[in-house]
Protein backbone atom coordinates (compact mmCIF):
# COMPACT_ATOMS: atom_id res chain seq x y z
CA UNK A 1 0.00 0.00 0.00
CA UNK A 2 2.96 2.27 0.72
CA UNK A 3 3.61 2.90 -2.99
CA UNK A 4 0.06 3.57 -4.00
CA UNK A 5 -0.58 7.15 -4.92
CA UNK A 6 -3.58 9.04 -6.14
CA UNK A 7 -3.48 11.38 -9.13
CA UNK A 8 -5.14 14.57 -8.01
CA UNK A 9 -6.23 17.32 -10.36
CA UNK A 10 -7.61 20.51 -8.94
CA UNK A 11 -7.44 24.27 -9.15
CA UNK A 12 -5.41 25.92 -6.42
CA UNK A 13 -5.62 29.71 -6.13
CA UNK A 14 -6.52 29.96 -9.80
CA UNK A 15 -3.79 27.62 -11.04
CA UNK A 16 -4.42 24.10 -12.42
CA UNK A 17 -2.57 21.40 -10.52
CA UNK A 18 -1.91 17.78 -11.30
CA UNK A 19 -0.05 16.10 -8.47
CA UNK A 20 0.34 12.70 -6.86
CA UNK A 21 -0.73 12.32 -3.25
CA UNK A 22 -1.09 9.49 -0.75
CA UNK A 23 -4.66 8.25 -0.42
CA UNK A 24 -4.67 8.99 3.29
CA UNK A 25 -3.23 12.50 3.24
CA UNK A 26 -5.42 15.35 4.32
CA UNK A 27 -5.93 18.44 2.21
CA UNK A 28 -4.10 20.49 4.87
CA UNK A 29 -1.02 18.25 4.62
CA UNK A 30 -0.97 18.55 0.85
CA UNK A 31 -1.32 22.33 0.94
CA UNK A 32 1.41 22.79 3.54
CA UNK A 33 3.92 20.03 2.78
CA UNK A 34 3.52 19.43 -0.91
CA UNK A 35 2.45 22.85 -2.18
CA UNK A 36 4.45 24.84 0.37
CA UNK A 37 1.44 26.99 1.24
CA UNK A 38 2.07 27.29 4.96
CA UNK A 39 -0.40 30.14 5.43
CA UNK A 40 -2.98 27.44 6.17
CA UNK A 41 -2.24 26.59 9.81
CA UNK A 42 -2.62 23.34 11.69
CA UNK A 43 -3.49 23.31 15.36
CA UNK A 44 -6.12 20.91 16.78
CA UNK A 45 -6.21 18.77 13.60
CA UNK A 46 -9.71 17.63 14.55
CA UNK A 47 -11.98 20.23 12.97
CA UNK A 48 -12.43 22.14 16.23
CA UNK A 49 -10.34 25.30 15.91
CA UNK A 50 -10.68 26.53 12.32
CA UNK A 51 -6.97 27.41 11.88
CA UNK A 52 -6.85 25.28 8.72
CA UNK A 53 -9.93 26.82 7.05
CA UNK A 54 -9.79 27.08 3.26
CA UNK A 55 -12.53 27.54 0.66
CA UNK A 56 -13.45 24.52 -1.48
CA UNK A 57 -15.92 25.18 -4.31
CA UNK A 58 -17.22 28.28 -2.55
CA UNK A 59 -17.61 26.65 0.87
CA UNK A 60 -15.43 27.11 3.95
CA UNK A 61 -14.05 23.81 5.24
CA UNK A 62 -11.52 22.69 7.83
CA UNK A 63 -8.83 21.19 5.60
CA UNK A 64 -7.41 19.01 8.41
CA UNK A 65 -10.43 16.71 8.17
CA UNK A 66 -10.81 16.61 4.39
CA UNK A 67 -8.95 13.88 2.53
CA UNK A 68 -6.85 15.13 -0.38
CA UNK A 69 -8.50 12.75 -2.90
CA UNK A 70 -11.89 14.20 -1.96
CA UNK A 71 -11.05 17.51 -3.66
CA UNK A 72 -10.56 15.92 -7.08
CA UNK A 73 -11.74 18.48 -9.66
CA UNK A 74 -12.41 21.15 -7.04
CA UNK A 75 -11.56 24.82 -6.93
CA UNK A 76 -9.58 25.68 -3.80
CA UNK A 77 -8.71 29.09 -2.41
CA UNK A 78 -6.26 29.48 0.47
CA UNK A 79 -5.10 32.61 2.29
CA UNK A 80 -2.28 32.91 -0.29
CA UNK A 81 -4.87 33.18 -3.07
CA UNK A 82 -6.72 36.22 -1.75
CA UNK A 83 -4.44 39.00 -2.96
CA UNK A 84 -4.95 40.22 -6.50
CA UNK A 85 -2.36 42.02 -8.62
CA UNK A 86 -0.12 42.35 -5.58
CA UNK A 87 -2.84 43.95 -3.47
CA UNK A 88 -4.21 42.28 -0.38
CA UNK A 89 -7.93 41.59 -0.06
CA UNK A 90 -10.19 44.12 1.70
CA UNK A 91 -10.75 41.54 4.47
CA UNK A 92 -7.00 41.40 5.12
CA UNK A 93 -6.77 45.18 4.97
CA UNK A 94 -9.59 45.51 7.50
CA UNK A 95 -7.96 43.01 9.90
CA UNK A 96 -4.77 45.09 9.86
CA UNK A 97 -6.52 48.45 10.24
CA UNK A 98 -8.75 47.28 13.08
CA UNK A 99 -5.83 45.78 14.99
CA UNK A 100 -7.57 42.39 14.91
CA UNK A 101 -4.28 40.45 14.83
CA UNK A 102 -2.24 39.54 17.90
CA UNK A 103 -0.02 36.43 17.57
CA UNK A 104 -1.61 35.83 14.17
CA UNK A 105 -1.90 32.05 14.27
CA UNK A 106 -5.68 31.93 13.94
CA UNK A 107 -5.85 34.76 11.41
CA UNK A 108 -5.58 32.94 8.06
CA UNK A 109 -8.52 30.74 9.12
CA UNK A 110 -10.47 33.73 10.44
CA UNK A 111 -9.89 35.64 7.22
CA UNK A 112 -11.03 32.69 5.08
CA UNK A 113 -14.21 32.27 7.17
CA UNK A 114 -14.87 36.01 6.93
CA UNK A 115 -14.23 36.02 3.19
CA UNK A 116 -16.62 33.09 2.74
CA UNK A 117 -19.30 34.89 4.75
CA UNK A 118 -18.96 38.15 2.79
CA UNK A 119 -19.10 36.27 -0.52
CA UNK A 120 -22.49 34.92 0.56
CA UNK A 121 -23.85 37.91 2.47
CA UNK A 122 -22.64 41.45 1.81
CA UNK A 123 -24.20 42.99 4.94
CA UNK A 124 -23.96 40.49 7.80
CA UNK A 125 -25.14 41.61 11.23
CA UNK A 126 -23.18 40.79 14.39
CA UNK A 127 -25.05 37.52 15.00
CA UNK A 128 -24.38 36.36 11.44
CA UNK A 129 -20.69 37.19 11.82
CA UNK A 130 -20.55 35.21 15.06
CA UNK A 131 -22.26 32.24 13.45
CA UNK A 132 -19.90 32.24 10.47
CA UNK A 133 -16.78 32.61 12.66
CA UNK A 134 -18.02 30.36 15.50
CA UNK A 135 -15.75 27.55 14.32
CA UNK A 136 -12.61 29.69 14.51
CA UNK A 137 -10.89 29.92 17.88
CA UNK A 138 -8.54 32.80 18.75
CA UNK A 139 -6.48 32.05 21.84
CA UNK A 140 -5.28 35.64 22.06
CA UNK A 141 -9.01 36.35 22.41
CA UNK A 142 -9.23 39.27 20.04
CA UNK A 143 -12.81 38.48 19.07
CA UNK A 144 -14.18 41.99 19.49
CA UNK A 145 -11.74 43.50 17.03
CA UNK A 146 -12.13 40.57 14.66
CA UNK A 147 -15.88 41.24 14.49
CA UNK A 148 -15.19 44.95 13.89
CA UNK A 149 -12.79 43.96 11.10
CA UNK A 150 -15.44 41.87 9.36
CA UNK A 151 -17.94 44.74 9.59
CA UNK A 152 -15.37 47.12 8.16
CA UNK A 153 -14.46 44.66 5.39
CA UNK A 154 -18.14 44.47 4.40
CA UNK A 155 -18.09 48.26 4.03
CA UNK A 156 -14.89 48.12 1.97
CA UNK A 157 -16.35 45.55 -0.43
CA UNK A 158 -19.37 47.77 -0.99
CA UNK A 159 -17.22 50.81 -1.69
CA UNK A 160 -15.13 48.77 -4.11
CA UNK A 161 -18.26 47.71 -5.98
CA UNK A 162 -19.37 51.37 -6.17
CA UNK A 163 -16.04 52.42 -7.69
CA UNK A 164 -16.13 49.68 -10.35
Amino acid at each position, binding site marked *: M*ENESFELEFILNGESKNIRVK*HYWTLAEVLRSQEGLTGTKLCCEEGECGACTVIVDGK*SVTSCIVLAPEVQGSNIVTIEGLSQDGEIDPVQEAFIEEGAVQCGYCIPGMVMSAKNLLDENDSPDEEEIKEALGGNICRCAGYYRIICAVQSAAQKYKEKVKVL
Partner: protein
Amino acid sequence: MSEFLYHVPNNLDDLFSTIKKHGSSAALLAGGTDLLIHLKVGKIAPQHVIDIKHVKELYEKITFCSNGMTIGALTTLINITKHPDVQKLYPALSESARKVGSKQIRNRGTLVGNICNASPAADTAPALLIYNAEVTIVGMNSRRTIPFESFIKGPGKTDLKEGEIVESLFFPFPPANSTSNFVKLARREGADLTIVGTATLAASNYETRIALCAVAPIPFRACSAEYVLNQGGYNQQNIDKALEKVVHNANPISDLRATKEYRLAMVEVITRKSLENSLKILTN
Protein backbone atom coordinates in the same frame (compact mmCIF):
# COMPACT_ATOMS: atom_id res chain seq x y z
CA MET B 1 -3.66 8.31 10.52
CA SER B 2 -3.20 4.71 9.39
CA GLU B 3 -2.76 3.97 5.71
CA PHE B 4 -5.69 3.10 3.51
CA LEU B 5 -6.82 3.13 -0.09
CA TYR B 6 -9.43 5.66 -1.17
CA HIS B 7 -12.23 4.47 -3.47
CA VAL B 8 -14.74 6.61 -5.26
CA PRO B 9 -17.49 4.52 -6.87
CA ASN B 10 -19.84 6.44 -9.16
CA ASN B 11 -22.91 4.23 -9.02
CA LEU B 12 -24.65 1.95 -6.53
CA ASP B 13 -23.55 -1.29 -8.25
CA ASP B 14 -19.95 -0.17 -8.01
CA LEU B 15 -20.44 0.90 -4.41
CA PHE B 16 -21.93 -2.42 -3.34
CA SER B 17 -19.31 -4.49 -5.13
CA THR B 18 -16.54 -2.40 -3.55
CA ILE B 19 -18.13 -2.90 -0.12
CA LYS B 20 -18.52 -6.62 -0.74
CA LYS B 21 -14.93 -7.00 -1.90
CA HIS B 22 -13.45 -5.35 1.17
CA GLY B 23 -16.02 -6.28 3.80
CA SER B 24 -15.23 -5.19 7.32
CA SER B 25 -11.87 -3.68 6.30
CA ALA B 26 -13.74 -0.81 4.60
CA ALA B 27 -15.37 2.34 5.97
CA LEU B 28 -17.89 4.59 4.25
CA LEU B 29 -17.17 8.29 3.88
CA ALA B 30 -19.81 10.99 3.37
CA GLY B 31 -18.80 14.44 4.73
CA GLY B 32 -16.06 12.81 6.79
CA THR B 33 -16.54 15.05 9.83
CA ASP B 34 -16.97 12.02 12.09
CA LEU B 35 -15.00 9.48 10.09
CA LEU B 36 -11.82 11.55 9.83
CA ILE B 37 -11.80 12.07 13.60
CA HIS B 38 -12.20 8.33 14.19
CA LEU B 39 -9.38 7.64 11.72
CA LYS B 40 -7.12 10.25 13.29
CA VAL B 41 -7.51 9.10 16.87
CA GLY B 42 -7.13 5.49 15.77
CA LYS B 43 -10.60 4.43 16.89
CA ILE B 44 -10.85 2.62 13.58
CA ALA B 45 -8.13 1.64 11.10
CA PRO B 46 -9.81 0.48 7.88
CA GLN B 47 -7.69 -0.50 4.90
CA HIS B 48 -10.21 0.96 2.51
CA VAL B 49 -12.21 4.18 2.63
CA ILE B 50 -15.16 4.36 0.25
CA ASP B 51 -16.38 7.85 -0.63
CA ILE B 52 -20.12 7.78 -1.41
CA LYS B 53 -20.35 11.41 -2.60
CA HIS B 54 -20.11 10.56 -6.29
CA VAL B 55 -22.61 7.70 -6.35
CA LYS B 56 -25.06 9.01 -8.91
CA GLU B 57 -28.17 7.38 -7.41
CA LEU B 58 -27.56 9.08 -4.05
CA TYR B 59 -28.66 12.67 -3.88
CA GLU B 60 -28.19 15.96 -2.15
CA LYS B 61 -31.54 17.54 -2.84
CA ILE B 62 -34.48 17.90 -0.46
CA THR B 63 -37.80 16.95 -2.04
CA PHE B 64 -41.43 17.30 -0.99
CA CYS B 65 -44.39 15.10 -1.93
CA SER B 66 -48.03 15.01 -0.86
CA ASN B 67 -47.34 13.42 2.53
CA GLY B 68 -43.91 14.60 3.55
CA MET B 69 -40.26 15.39 2.82
CA THR B 70 -37.32 13.26 1.70
CA ILE B 71 -33.70 14.03 2.51
CA GLY B 72 -30.97 12.20 0.62
CA ALA B 73 -27.82 10.53 1.91
CA LEU B 74 -25.76 13.42 0.56
CA THR B 75 -27.85 16.33 1.87
CA THR B 76 -25.50 18.53 3.91
CA LEU B 77 -26.49 20.10 7.20
CA ILE B 78 -25.93 23.58 5.74
CA ASN B 79 -28.46 22.91 2.98
CA ILE B 80 -31.01 21.82 5.57
CA THR B 81 -30.51 25.02 7.59
CA LYS B 82 -30.83 27.16 4.47
CA HIS B 83 -34.03 25.59 3.16
CA PRO B 84 -37.00 27.88 3.92
CA ASP B 85 -39.59 25.06 3.79
CA VAL B 86 -37.62 22.91 6.22
CA GLN B 87 -37.49 25.88 8.56
CA LYS B 88 -41.23 26.42 8.23
CA LEU B 89 -42.46 22.82 8.39
CA TYR B 90 -39.79 21.12 10.48
CA PRO B 91 -38.30 23.87 12.67
CA ALA B 92 -36.78 21.42 15.18
CA LEU B 93 -34.83 19.77 12.35
CA SER B 94 -33.68 23.10 10.95
CA GLU B 95 -32.62 24.37 14.39
CA SER B 96 -30.84 21.16 15.37
CA ALA B 97 -28.93 21.03 12.07
CA ARG B 98 -27.82 24.62 12.74
CA LYS B 99 -26.49 23.53 16.15
CA VAL B 100 -24.15 20.87 14.76
CA GLY B 101 -20.53 21.99 14.99
CA SER B 102 -19.47 25.09 13.10
CA LYS B 103 -20.24 26.42 9.64
CA GLN B 104 -17.21 24.57 8.28
CA ILE B 105 -18.58 21.31 9.74
CA ARG B 106 -22.12 21.94 8.44
CA ASN B 107 -20.73 22.75 4.99
CA ARG B 108 -19.47 19.17 4.73
CA GLY B 109 -21.35 17.07 7.27
CA THR B 110 -24.54 15.28 6.21
CA LEU B 111 -27.72 14.59 8.17
CA VAL B 112 -27.48 10.89 7.34
CA GLY B 113 -23.87 10.83 8.59
CA ASN B 114 -25.03 12.38 11.86
CA ILE B 115 -27.45 9.51 12.52
CA CYS B 116 -25.24 6.71 11.11
CA ASN B 117 -22.53 7.72 13.54
CA ALA B 118 -25.12 6.88 16.25
CA SER B 119 -23.62 9.14 18.89
CA PRO B 120 -25.76 9.49 22.03
CA ALA B 121 -25.25 13.24 21.53
CA ALA B 122 -26.30 13.39 17.85
CA ASP B 123 -28.07 16.74 17.75
CA THR B 124 -30.45 15.95 14.93
CA ALA B 125 -31.73 12.70 16.46
CA PRO B 126 -34.40 14.26 18.75
CA ALA B 127 -35.91 16.06 15.73
CA LEU B 128 -36.00 12.82 13.72
CA LEU B 129 -37.75 11.17 16.67
CA ILE B 130 -40.47 13.79 17.12
CA TYR B 131 -41.24 13.88 13.40
CA ASN B 132 -41.49 10.05 13.24
CA ALA B 133 -38.82 9.96 10.52
CA GLU B 134 -38.27 6.79 8.52
CA VAL B 135 -34.95 5.44 7.28
CA THR B 136 -34.65 3.79 3.87
CA ILE B 137 -31.81 1.29 3.78
CA VAL B 138 -30.49 -0.32 0.61
CA GLY B 139 -28.13 -3.21 -0.01
CA MET B 140 -26.96 -5.04 -3.11
CA ASN B 141 -30.26 -6.92 -3.43
CA SER B 142 -32.35 -5.40 -0.70
CA ARG B 143 -34.35 -2.38 0.20
CA ARG B 144 -36.23 -1.74 3.45
CA THR B 145 -37.73 1.17 5.36
CA ILE B 146 -37.76 1.26 9.16
CA PRO B 147 -38.79 3.87 11.73
CA PHE B 148 -35.84 5.96 12.89
CA GLU B 149 -36.81 5.02 16.43
CA SER B 150 -35.56 1.47 15.82
CA PHE B 151 -32.51 2.50 13.76
CA ILE B 152 -30.15 3.38 16.60
CA LYS B 153 -29.31 0.32 18.66
CA GLY B 154 -26.67 1.60 21.06
CA PRO B 155 -23.78 4.05 21.27
CA GLY B 156 -22.13 3.81 17.83
CA LYS B 157 -24.46 0.98 16.79
CA THR B 158 -27.17 1.06 14.14
CA ASP B 159 -29.53 -1.42 12.55
CA LEU B 160 -27.37 -1.44 9.36
CA LYS B 161 -26.14 -4.89 8.37
CA GLU B 162 -22.84 -5.37 6.56
CA GLY B 163 -23.23 -4.23 2.97
CA GLU B 164 -26.16 -1.93 3.66
CA ILE B 165 -26.24 1.84 3.43
CA VAL B 166 -28.79 4.51 4.23
CA GLU B 167 -30.28 5.89 1.02
CA SER B 168 -32.63 8.53 2.40
CA LEU B 169 -34.77 9.77 5.28
CA PHE B 170 -38.50 10.42 5.02
CA PHE B 171 -40.33 12.91 7.25
CA PRO B 172 -44.14 12.69 7.31
CA PHE B 173 -45.75 16.12 7.64
CA PRO B 174 -46.22 17.05 11.31
CA PRO B 175 -49.80 17.07 12.70
CA ALA B 176 -52.07 20.01 11.83
CA ASN B 177 -51.95 23.00 14.21
CA SER B 178 -48.71 21.88 15.79
CA THR B 179 -45.39 23.55 16.41
CA SER B 180 -41.95 22.24 17.32
CA ASN B 181 -38.45 23.36 18.24
CA PHE B 182 -35.05 22.19 19.49
CA VAL B 183 -33.06 23.52 22.45
CA LYS B 184 -29.40 22.63 22.98
CA LEU B 185 -27.28 23.20 26.05
CA ALA B 186 -23.51 23.16 25.44
CA ARG B 187 -20.51 24.97 26.87
CA ARG B 188 -19.79 26.92 23.71
CA GLU B 189 -21.98 28.01 20.76
CA GLY B 190 -19.68 26.87 17.93
CA ALA B 191 -18.39 23.29 17.65
CA ASP B 192 -19.22 21.76 21.01
CA LEU B 193 -21.01 18.55 21.80
CA THR B 194 -24.34 18.72 23.58
CA ILE B 195 -24.83 18.38 27.34
CA VAL B 196 -28.62 18.14 26.99
CA GLY B 197 -30.61 18.47 23.75
CA THR B 198 -34.41 18.43 23.60
CA ALA B 199 -36.90 18.60 20.74
CA THR B 200 -40.59 19.00 21.49
CA LEU B 201 -43.76 19.15 19.41
CA ALA B 202 -47.02 20.49 20.80
CA ALA B 203 -50.40 20.63 19.06
CA SER B 204 -53.71 22.34 19.73
CA ASN B 205 -55.31 18.93 20.39
CA TYR B 206 -52.53 18.28 22.98
CA GLU B 207 -50.72 15.73 20.84
CA THR B 208 -47.23 16.06 22.31
CA ARG B 209 -43.89 14.59 21.37
CA ILE B 210 -40.71 14.96 23.41
CA ALA B 211 -37.28 13.56 22.52
CA LEU B 212 -33.83 14.03 24.03
CA CYS B 213 -30.20 13.41 23.17
CA ALA B 214 -26.97 13.24 25.23
CA VAL B 215 -28.71 12.05 28.42
CA ALA B 216 -28.97 8.28 27.77
CA PRO B 217 -27.03 5.67 25.76
CA ILE B 218 -29.24 6.49 22.77
CA PRO B 219 -31.52 9.42 21.88
CA PHE B 220 -35.06 8.57 23.03
CA ARG B 221 -38.73 9.60 23.08
CA ALA B 222 -40.10 10.39 26.55
CA CYS B 223 -43.37 8.49 25.96
CA SER B 224 -44.71 8.51 29.52
CA ALA B 225 -44.31 12.29 29.69
CA GLU B 226 -46.00 12.67 26.32
CA TYR B 227 -48.93 10.61 27.60
CA VAL B 228 -49.44 12.91 30.59
CA LEU B 229 -49.74 15.93 28.30
CA ASN B 230 -51.77 14.18 25.60
CA GLN B 231 -54.33 13.26 28.23
CA GLY B 232 -54.32 16.23 30.54
CA GLY B 233 -53.40 19.21 28.37
CA TYR B 234 -50.96 22.02 28.93
CA ASN B 235 -51.65 23.33 32.42
CA GLN B 236 -48.78 24.06 34.77
CA GLN B 237 -49.47 21.10 37.03
CA ASN B 238 -49.47 18.69 34.10
CA ILE B 239 -46.30 20.15 32.65
CA ASP B 240 -44.54 19.70 36.00
CA LYS B 241 -45.77 16.12 36.17
CA ALA B 242 -44.59 15.42 32.61
CA LEU B 243 -41.17 16.92 33.33
CA GLU B 244 -40.76 14.62 36.31
CA LYS B 245 -41.34 11.69 33.96
CA VAL B 246 -38.78 13.02 31.47
CA VAL B 247 -36.15 13.24 34.22
CA HIS B 248 -37.09 9.72 35.28
CA ASN B 249 -36.53 8.46 31.70
CA ALA B 250 -33.09 10.06 31.42
CA ASN B 251 -30.04 8.02 32.32
CA PRO B 252 -27.03 10.24 31.72
CA ILE B 253 -23.36 9.65 32.37
CA SER B 254 -20.69 11.99 33.67
CA ASP B 255 -18.06 12.99 31.13
CA LEU B 256 -15.68 15.87 30.53
CA ARG B 257 -18.57 18.10 29.48
CA ALA B 258 -20.85 17.65 32.50
CA THR B 259 -21.59 15.47 35.50
CA LYS B 260 -24.53 13.11 35.62
CA GLU B 261 -26.15 15.27 38.31
CA TYR B 262 -25.83 18.46 36.29
CA ARG B 263 -27.27 16.74 33.21
CA LEU B 264 -30.25 15.48 35.20
CA ALA B 265 -30.92 18.96 36.57
CA MET B 266 -30.65 20.42 33.09
CA VAL B 267 -32.97 17.82 31.53
CA GLU B 268 -35.82 19.52 33.36
CA VAL B 269 -34.68 23.06 32.57
CA ILE B 270 -34.04 22.48 28.86
CA THR B 271 -37.16 20.38 28.28
CA ARG B 272 -39.28 23.01 30.03
CA LYS B 273 -37.72 25.69 27.86
CA SER B 274 -38.42 23.76 24.68
CA LEU B 275 -42.02 23.02 25.71
CA GLU B 276 -42.61 26.65 26.68
CA ASN B 277 -41.20 27.80 23.33
CA SER B 278 -43.65 25.49 21.57
CA LEU B 279 -46.60 26.57 23.72
CA LYS B 280 -45.84 30.25 23.23
CA ILE B 281 -46.08 29.83 19.46
CA LEU B 282 -49.14 27.62 19.75
CA THR B 283 -51.13 30.11 21.82
CA ASN B 284 -50.34 32.94 19.42
